[in-house]
């Protein structure tokens, strides 16, 4: 059985591993190049340390900066076309979705999944062991069902000093009838292993630069899974798949791809590869682009639609005392109390991340603080003390707001504007509904209350001349892109209104799979990579079970090394 996997990021690397372990011959075609070895140095000398800055990309396979925005709001979430994909620059925060998120339409807005949380729970455990997640099951059970007896492969990471300071004030207090509790956030970062788990890479020693680069390889990236690939898996980088071909019965037969050697131009050669099964794992936007370019899988007219992200609201303040930000991971805890509930009928729910990197993302600290004090005339010791006091007390709350699946938010092809390989650039029409705006506003009000409880000095401000600024109910607001693109080949219960079935198989093509966040009917309020990984491992098992390598061939053991719930 020959499988072609398009994309060597999170989803592609995982599915290639399971298929390779189970006797498939797997060819992985990655559009980007290998990871550059000077990523840490590039990070240090980048003026703006945004997520893609450390990584070298190629002219032939541009990353998200080639998207064309045409909608009322800017879609500003980056993704990376490089071996390892966006999973190289990701933050490594891995909460599970809330059970209600799987019936988002019933609870609030958007679309229901054809799966329940209980259906996916075993795959969550498999993903947590494959990736290597540090968390405490009992702590997670305070807000989510976790199988009895289950242990995460690593103990929860130590909390930050800031987390303790906030928990000591807010734990047990209430806002709008919700009891607040600071809860550890599962992390794809090496900590202390439990019995039976072997650390892969170094333990986290607190470089505080997880996004975009972990200098000591303590954070999971898909390259770790690639090192576990069997010899059945072959990776070819600098190969841009630009067409998937199907026969008259809808069976996919082969892919066409463009191979380049020169990273600075669109010069390329053309190739084809036949396959028994094709798995698209190229990112939500790129999967949709490829399906649209191929004219496949779109009998429902849903390909490219339902584009979602987490519009994030940042609020920032000073604690009354020094808490030592910029030490350790970006966030080790959150407040989970607002992730669902009856308000979901009227406004989007949200998850609160306690941000440990000062005002770095929200306001450009400490450079911005320095500039402010220098402009105010501070010099010498006074300047030094002002910076120490200001930076030492900074923290940020990051609210991840659910965005419901809306068919009007969509990816299409701009045939008039092409990339250097001659392929149409993706055009994005993106907006925020009142449901999302109400959620952003509710989050801001919760932030106000939390800052008040903490006695924190609120420095949040959103100004009309800033990007992604808007007003809602007369209040200034702003949103940030979280890098959580999804929904563009949405999963559903019927071929009439969805692109893939519960196994991420295209309804229109029995041997074509589109995997990743693009399949998700709702994103809930959690960072989606873990859920993507769980879905992918579930799909891999299904593929192995349905595409045996020959009559009576024995499987090479359970796919994805599912840990037993002990």
């Amino acid at each position, binding site marked *: 059985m020959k499988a072609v996997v398009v994309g060597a990021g999170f989803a592609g690397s995982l599915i290639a591993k399971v298929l390779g372990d189970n006797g498939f011959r797997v060819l992985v075609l990655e559009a980007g190049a290998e990871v550059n070895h000077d990523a840490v140095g590039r990070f240090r000398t980048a003026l703006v340390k945004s997520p893609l800055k450390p990584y070298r990309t190629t002219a032939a396979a541009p990353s998200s900066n080639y998207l064309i925005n045409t909608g009322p709001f800017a879609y500003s979430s980056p993704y990376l076309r490089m071996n390892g994909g966006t999973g190289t620059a990701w933050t490594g925060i891995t909460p599970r979705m809330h059970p209600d998120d799987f019936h988002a339409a019933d609870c609030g807005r958007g679309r229901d999944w054809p799966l329940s949380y209980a259906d996916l729970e075993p795959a969550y455990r498999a993903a947590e062991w494959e990736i290597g997640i540090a968390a405490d099951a009992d702590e997670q059970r305070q807000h989510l069902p976790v199988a009895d007896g289950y242990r995460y492969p690593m103990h929860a990471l130590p909390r930050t000093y800031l987390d303790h300071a906030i928990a000591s004030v807010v734990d047990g207090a209430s806002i709008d009838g919700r009891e607040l509790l600071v809860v550890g956030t599962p992390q794809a970062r090496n900590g202390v292993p439990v019995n039976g788990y072997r650390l892969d890479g170094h333990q986290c020693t607190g470089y505080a630069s997880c996004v975009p680069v972990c200098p000591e390889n303590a954070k999971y990236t898909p390259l770790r899974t690639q090192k576990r690939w069997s010899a059945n898996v072959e990776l070819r980088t600098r190969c841009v798949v630009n067409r998937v071909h199907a026969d008259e019965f809808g069976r996919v037969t082969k892919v066409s791809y463009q191979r380049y050697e020169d990273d600075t131009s669109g010069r390329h050669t053309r190739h084809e590869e036949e396959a028994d099964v094709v798995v698209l794992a190229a990112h939500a936007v790129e999967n949709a682009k490829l399906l649209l370019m191929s004219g496949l899988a779109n009998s429902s007219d849903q390909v490219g639609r339902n584009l979602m992200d987490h519009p994030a609201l940042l609020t920032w303040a000073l604690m009354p005392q020094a808490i030592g930000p910029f*030490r350790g991971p970006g966030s080790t805890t959150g407040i989970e109390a607002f992730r669902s509930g009856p308000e979901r009928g009227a406004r989007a729910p949200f998850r609160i991340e306690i941000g440990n990197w000062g005002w*770095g993302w929200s306001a450009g600290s400490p450079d911005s603080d320095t500039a402010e004090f220098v402009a105010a005339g501070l010099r010498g010791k006074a300047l*030094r*003390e002002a910076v120490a006091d200001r930076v030492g007390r900074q923290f940020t709350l990051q609210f991840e707001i659910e965005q419901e699946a809306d068919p009007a938010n969509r990816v299409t092809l701009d045939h008039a504007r092409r990339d250097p390989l001659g392929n149409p650039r993706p055009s994005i029409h993106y907006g925020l509904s009142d449901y999302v705006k109400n959620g952003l506003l509710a989050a801001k009000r919760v932030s106000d209350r939390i800052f008040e409880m903490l006695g924190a000095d609120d420095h949040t401000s959103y100004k009309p001349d800033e990007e992604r600024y808007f007003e809602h109910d007369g209040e200034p607001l702003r949103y940030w892109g979280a890098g959580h693109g999804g929904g563009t080949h949405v999963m559903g219960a019927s071929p009439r209104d969805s692109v893939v079935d519960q196994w991420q198989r295209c309804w229109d093509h029995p041997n074509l799979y589109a995997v990743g966040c693009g399949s998700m009917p709702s994103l809930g309020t959690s960072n989606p990579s873990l859920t993507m990984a769980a879905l992918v491992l579930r799909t891999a098992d299904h593929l192995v079970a349905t595409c045996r390598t020959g009559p009576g061939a024995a499987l090479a053991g359970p796919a994805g090394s599912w840990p037993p719930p002990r």
Partner: protein
Amino acid sequence: MDAFLELSAELTGFSADELRSTGLVEQYRALADGAPENEIIQLWYTGVWRGVIPGERAYVEGLAWKAAGVAAPGTRAPGFGSWEQRPARSAR
């Protein structure tokens, strides 16, 4: 002590010895001797010279981080769990 170092110490609130320990005095003198005060301070504090970071060391040794008592992100590994401890007092 040379004039640039003396002025830098006066502007930044860091002693000449602290500035020398960054290994950047020569490079910064060549870049910024005679420049306006705010540019000299910005260079020392943030490692940015007229919109460019002139080398990794400029970022690593940024005085804003030192004033706050932390390492610039992505430059030092204070150890597993160190983030849980009470921060050291930094300003002096």
